[in-house]
């Protein structure tokens, strides 16, 4: 008797859930269909990113497999340059860009981002860890920062190179400092306070007359060319994606502490000319398939995850990982980054 009652109750519950779920699913499907139709009409997405042509080709080809009717066009630009371009676009009112792959903080402050509030209604199964909290951006897999050096150039007795050893006089003029992403010094924060970092830079880095480079790609290339022997705050994803020339032992070594960047946002812009196609692209980026594509072509992988080469690599080196906390921290890091560049004789105006 009890079993019959339980069975009937279960039956009723299932029916009730279905009565709710089926319309929700149908509603979502309907919305997806409408979005797809509108996106097809737009037919194109314009994105500002720093993806090299081969990387971009891999990403766009995979996207086209999912959505053949939509073309993605990239304007290759680093984040700060892209932001400057967007300022001009917004100021002139002549908008051409739909998406940009850069830090969200400046865009948010400038009122340039466009949230997509019903994202989860349209795509209820979206992976939420790959969506930015503002619901205006998809996140490509995170990167990791650390001390990177050329073991064939750095004197053997200094290896393994640590932050303490960067004061060695033999490294004078051989240490690289990034003047574009000057705020990446915050990758050291959980280990050191802001005061400690500033003091460290003042007493160790500045006297070494470091070589300045313009963006993490430039810094990596200088490392490849041997113009710098060590980058204290280097984006290590380059190590996994860029070719290493034969004959040069260009090996990045994980430091004791690795700053793990949360995923790099691909942001939907306010009044984008092709908003529907852009939304499709954003959603696609959040899928497992796309995350794999980004890892494959960009070298960005989850350092916590042992199944990818990035995670394996950090585990092998016994690196301790830490995460950035929030955008507020980035804003603070910029202030201290600007102070660091001032110490190096480079005046940095506010953005």
């Amino acid at each position, binding site marked *: 008797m009890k079993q019959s009652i339980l069975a009937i109750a279960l039956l009723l519950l299932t029916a009730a859930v279905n009565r709710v779920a089926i319309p929700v699913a149908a509603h979502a499907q309907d919305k997806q269909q409408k979005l797809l139709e509108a996106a097809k009409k737009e037919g194109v997405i*314009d994105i500002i990113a*720093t993806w*090299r*042509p*081969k990387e971009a080709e891999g990403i766009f080809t995979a996207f086209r497999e999912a959505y053949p009717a939509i073309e993605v*066009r990239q*304007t*290759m*630009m*680093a984040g*700060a*340059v892209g*932001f*400057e*371009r967007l*300022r*001009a*676009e*917004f*100021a*002139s009112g*002549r908008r*051409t*860009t739909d998406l940009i792959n850069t830090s969200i903080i*400046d865009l948010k*402050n*400038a*009122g*340039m981002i466009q949230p997509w509030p019903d994202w989860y209604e349209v795509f209820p199964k979206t992976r939420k860890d790959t969506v930015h909290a503002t619901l205006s951006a998809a996140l490509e897999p995170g990167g990791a920062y650390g001390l990177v050096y050329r073991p064939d*150039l750095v004197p053997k007795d200094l290896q393994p190179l640590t932050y303490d050893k960067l004061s060695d006089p033999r490294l004078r003029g051989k240490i690289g400092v990034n*003047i*574009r992403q000057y705020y990446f010094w915050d990758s050291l924060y959980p280990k050191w306070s802001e005061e400690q970092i500033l003091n460290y830079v003042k007493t160790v880095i500045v006297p070494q*007359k470091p*070589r*300045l*480079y*313009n963006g993490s*790609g*430039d810094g990596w*290339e*200088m490392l*490849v*060319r*041997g*113009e710098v022997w060590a980058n204290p705050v280097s984006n290590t994803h380059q190590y996994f994606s*860029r070719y290493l*020339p*034969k*004959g*040069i032992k260009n090996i990045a070594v994980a430091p004791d502490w690795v700053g793990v960047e949360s995923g790099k946002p691909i942001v939907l812009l*306010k009044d984008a000319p092709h908003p529907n196609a852009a939304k499709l692209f954003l959603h696609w980026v959040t899928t497992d398939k796309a995350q794999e594509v980004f890892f494959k072509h960009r070298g960005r992988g989850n350092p916590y995850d042992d199944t990818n080469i990035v995670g394996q690599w950090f585990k092998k080196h016994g690196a301790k990982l830490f995460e950035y906390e929030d955008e507020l921290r980035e804003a603070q890091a910029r202030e201290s980054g600007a102070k660091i560049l*001032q110490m*190096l*004789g*480079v*005046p*940095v*105006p*506010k*953005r």
Partner: protein
Amino acid sequence: MRPLAVARQVYAAKVLPHVNLTSFILVGTVAAIAYLVVAPIIFLIWSSFRSALPTPADPGVFTLENYVFVYTSPATYTLFFNTVIFVAVCTSIALVFAVTFAWLIERTDLPGKRTLFVLILLPSAVPSLLMGISYIILAGPEAGLLNRFTEELFGVKPFNIFSIPAMFVLQGVNSVPGTFLIVLAALRSMDPALEEAACVSGVGWASTIRRVTLPMMLPAVLSAGIYTGMNIAETFEIPALIGVPIGFNVLSSQVYLSIRVWGNHTVASAYSVIFLILLVGMVYLYQRATRHSFRYTTISGKGYRPKLMPIGRWRYPAVVLIVAYFAVTAGLPLLVFVWSSVFPSHEPPTLAILSQASLEGFKEVFGNSTFLRCVKNTILLMVLTPVLTVGLISIASWLIVRSNLSLKSKTLLDTLTFWPHAYPGIVLGVALLWFFIVVDFPPVWGTLWPIVLGLTVSYMPFTVRTLNAAFIQVHQELEQAAYVSGASWLSTFVRITLPLILPALASAALWIAIHAMRSLTVPMFLTAQGNEVLSMLLWTYWDNDMVEAVSVIGLLYLVVCVALSLLWRRIGFKELQKA
């Protein structure tokens, strides 16, 4: 009344017609030039007092913050000092080479002068962007091809392009061809009688140079120095490529960094205003130095053809010097791009790696739709810029040379068209960015036109000098005959005047086309989605460490630049000398 007097009367009546299409064209041209030359700079100054470029969340307010930031930063004074040192040293290097080469070509019995002359001028076809990049690939401290080569042979790596002396030398030798032409023209117009008298009196050639030739050339060298200094002050590429990494910033690189790295347009405007003041000062000095240049003209009917000085055993070292100069400034960069476009790594040039040659880089570049779009835009730019510049300036130049405007008006127009020489390309780019965004007239932002208009302003000074010289050399009689026969001003201008100065027009147009193709600083801030040009793509690729693609595009660039320069030398060089 004599026919010529009648003609003059009719001519005078036609020169500034009162109403109709002609007056519209003349007045419209002057207005357009004034608008393009003056308005952007007004907006540059205005923008330096704004808090930000307007965005949806922040329309910006009036502020002195930018100037406070700039003037209270000790680094600004370092920047200014660096800029002065950079200009002074590089100009001196350029002058030493240019005066030596001009003297060797013009006054000595150097063998193979025609070829050597081309070898001195050809490096002008190598854009400084490519020169800088090629030397980074060549003389980088560790992976530079030269260092890899010497390391294999001798176990040492002696070259390092990332040093202040190397940067100065590179910029200095890159500026030699332009300086050489100015000094050569001055040397040609000097009476050699004094030098010959010195020789006859038993003074050796070295002493003649020191005591006669150089003192006579001093005014010309001075004006050439100021002119070269202006060009070096506004140059951006080598300071950005080599100066920034070693912390040696100059004003042009600081303007770039302020916008493109730190995203602050208004501080960039404040830096630009200082930069502009510096350049205006130099233009003023240049105009003062050249205003009375006729006082130093020693050309005369007799003895114009100088007796060539025998330099004996020094002939061959002199030839080697010129060939070495060519090799360093043009030959090596070309070879570097050939090498690195086929061997996509930093491998030293050895026989062992010849088997690794690959055309992948070419395939990647030619298969890239952005590259093809840039090629199309660059070709358009190379057509539209010369047409617009030569079109506007031919009318302005006619007004300056031919019209019966008052001397004051003519001087004003002449100054107006020459004034953009004081606008560093990077400053003009910033000014036009503000201008086209805020004023939005003409409403062309986002198209190729802002770049075309920017370059038009940039090339006005050169074009007006070239066309003024051409107009002066063509007598008015043919035009007067046309007026007497009832032709309108427009018809006479199009059918008589312009065909008469066609070589000068072609020369100016070709020169502009070459420079438009090479220009980086003006397009840098005016690029929007779809209007990208090749120079900008080259910079972007370099900025994103795509050495193979840079090498492929650099190689194509050099080949086209050299071919066009040779063509220009054939058809237009004489016009430049006249100017």
